[in-house]
């Protein structure tokens, strides 16, 4: 038995380690994606008031703080047991779309484009953002601009780019100003142009990735995502739908608050990442994927013209369900379009400047769940509080965690395809990493930890001897 450990996974947020098990014949037997640091954010929250939780949890992740902020504020709404003002819902949605756009832009342009546009086997020294700027200056610039657009939306609403404490139990702190509305509306056309141009470019290069699409985690699994009452794409406040690899409905309109009834969380000794699964099917068979790909697979429609047209084309990639995790990239681009269309719609709502944006109430419940679709997939916050609203228990089910099993599957599949014997060609290495990057895992947040650890590849012989070791700069 030989074991190859791939370490570090560069260009993903946070950190991880991969080990690949070879059997005696030098064939890949098993793969594990280890996440090895744990900071216990849940512990940190205990004893604090639930009203502070949005600001606290927004600090779990530097990439999608708004998702935690809003999931936490929604949990707070449920603890108050109030219906928050409609204007607050609209504003929260807009900020959330800003978050989705900036996070997707980061994933697509900054982290994945070097592979996608320069090629997986291009010179590793140039296959990075700098190399991308040299080869595709215009595109790189658009990527930066699109990300900035998302950040600016967040800033205009919350008056801070990241870690804004703007979402609070009961609504939001401040209404949108007329100038703020104009400013966002004024920026949308350029953002839209970038999204459309990138989509065209990407579709033209898609043919080059036949092999990647087949081997980058293309396997049957369940898919889970939020949908509107009519089954449309939803990111902020829907019910959950689960489908299987044939597109058949497994469950629909599930109440997110009851997630514990249908989602189990397995704990493996080799990773701090919990491995959630669909309970009725069991572990590990109940493996499901979340995130952009899953959302587009479960939704019957997007509900906006441009996104719907793209969705129809996207569906051609796999009927009835797009199974390849490689297409997370594509799905992200469609979601960006959708967010921009929806944002425009919301900003044009006659009551968007309404100043009644906060319901005042006291704690009326002792336990509540808040859920939404974060950029990487369904995010649940679950708090128990005692008298006075002090948090006694916290559970967060995070998108990257839910994609843990599928990511392991994807790595196994890629390794089986590319790893032959005990040599580690650069192209293979990068493909394993890219396979993971397709899921855009945010490891700092899924273990609720921060920082990076250096990673390396290690290859172990059948006798447990270290045969080879590769380290990434």
């Amino acid at each position, binding site marked *: 038995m030989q074991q190859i450990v791939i370490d570090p996974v560069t260009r993903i947020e946070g950190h991880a380690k991969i080990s690949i098990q070879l059997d005696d014949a030098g064939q890949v037997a098993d793969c594990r994606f280890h996440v090895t640091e744990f900071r216990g954010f849940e512990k940190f929250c205990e004893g604090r*008031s639930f009203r*502070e939780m*949005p600001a*606290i949890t927004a600090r779990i992740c530097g990439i999608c703080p708004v998702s935690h902020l809003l999931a936490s504020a929604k949990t707070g709404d449920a603890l108050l047991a109030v219906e928050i003002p409609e204007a607050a819902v609209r504003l929260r949605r807009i900020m959330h779309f800003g978050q989705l756009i900036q996070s997707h832009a980061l994933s697509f342009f900054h982290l994945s484009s070097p592979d996608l546009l320069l090629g997986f086997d291009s010179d590793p020294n140039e296959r990075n953002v700098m190399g991308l700027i040299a080869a595709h200056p215009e595109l790189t610039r658009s990527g930066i601009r699109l990300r900035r657009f998302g950040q600016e939306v967040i800033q205009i609403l919350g008056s801070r780019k990241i870690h804004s*404490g703007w979402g609070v139990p009961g609504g939001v702190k401040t209404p949108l100003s007329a100038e703020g509305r104009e400013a966002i509306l004024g920026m949308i056309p350029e953002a839209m142009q970038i999204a459309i141009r990138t989509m065209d470019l990407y579709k033209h290069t898609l043919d080059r990735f036949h092999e990647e699409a087949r081997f980058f985690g293309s396997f049957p699994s369940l898919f889970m995502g939020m949908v509107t009452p009519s089954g449309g794409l939803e990111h902020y406040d829907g019910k959950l739908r689960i489908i299987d690899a044939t597109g058949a409905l497994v469950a629909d309109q599930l109440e997110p608050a009851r997630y514990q009834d249908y989602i189990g969380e397995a704990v493996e000794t080799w990773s701090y990442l919990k491995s959630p699964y669909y309970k009725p099917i069991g572990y590990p068979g109940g493996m499901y994927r979340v995130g952009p790909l899953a959302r587009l697979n479960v939704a019957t429609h997007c509900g906006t013209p441009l996104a719907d047209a793209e969705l129809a084309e996207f569906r051609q990639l796999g009927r009835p369900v797009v199974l390849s995790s490689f297409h997370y990239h594509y799905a992200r681009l469609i979601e960006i379009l959708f967010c921009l269309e929806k944002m425009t719609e919301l900003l044009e709502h006659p009551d968007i400047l309404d100043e009644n944006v906060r319901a005042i109430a*006291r704690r009326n419940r002792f336990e509540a769940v808040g859920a939404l679709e974060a950029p990487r997939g369904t995010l649940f916050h679950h708090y128990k509080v005692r008298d*006075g609203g002090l948090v006694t228990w916290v559970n967060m089910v995070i998108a990257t965690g839910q994609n843990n099993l599928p990511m392991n599957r994807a790595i196994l599949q890629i390794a089986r395809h590319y790893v032959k014997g005990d040599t580690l060609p650069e192209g293979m290495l990068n493909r394993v990493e890219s396979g993971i990057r397709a899921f855009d895992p945010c490891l700092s947040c899924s273990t609720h930890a921060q920082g990076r650890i250096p990673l390396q590849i290690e290859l172990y012989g059948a006798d447990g001897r270290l045969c080879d070791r590769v380290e990434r700069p």
Partner: protein
Amino acid sequence: MSVKTLMINGQMVSASEDQTLLDVLRENGIELPTLCHLDGLTPIGACRLCLVELAGSNKLHPACMTRITEGMEVTTHSERLVKYRRMILELLFAERNHFCSICVINGQCDLQQMGYDVGMDHVRFEYQCPAVEVDASHERFIMDHNRCVLCTRCVRVCHEMEGAHTRDVMGRGGSSRIITDLNQLWGKSGSCTGCGKCVQVCPTGALFEKGRSAAEVVKQRDFLVYIKTAREKHLWIQ
């Protein structure tokens, strides 16, 4: 009332003899950080932030407690004083758990502002990270001991202004705590009138009204001097 003349940082200044040195300094536009002092409450000289040097004395003197005398020579910002002030603030931050970015009073906090004022860009002492209680048992207020700097403003306002003496200090050194009654939960206190004066005078996020999220607390302190003056001058029994 007689007028005294004194030298402040080499500058000749005159003031009336019933003034404290802190009053005189402020009158002359010299700012010193203060935490335990609050106009309207009896000064106690607890926080030591307002320390100054007086010619002819090796000791450092808290300006808030020092009566002016004729010919006094005062230095307010010597190298030593600036160093000590910063050190005191660092120790306050290291003693309990301060996370300004998520704190209810972020942006309006006296302690935080003083940190900025003295240029405290980091803390050189080891954070103690004590396990400290939050008392949310009161109907309307929360006492978060994590943010308390033991300035006792709340204790004094409760005793001197409200006359309830609900609050006091228990323990010694690092384990000192502000308590309500005989160390009961605030919500169970028989003497607390719920007036909220303590909440308003607290310089940090240790005392605040329920329902506030991060950076939402603003304190109202004008009432203090108003009540005190009215009481002393018998403004309401004419």
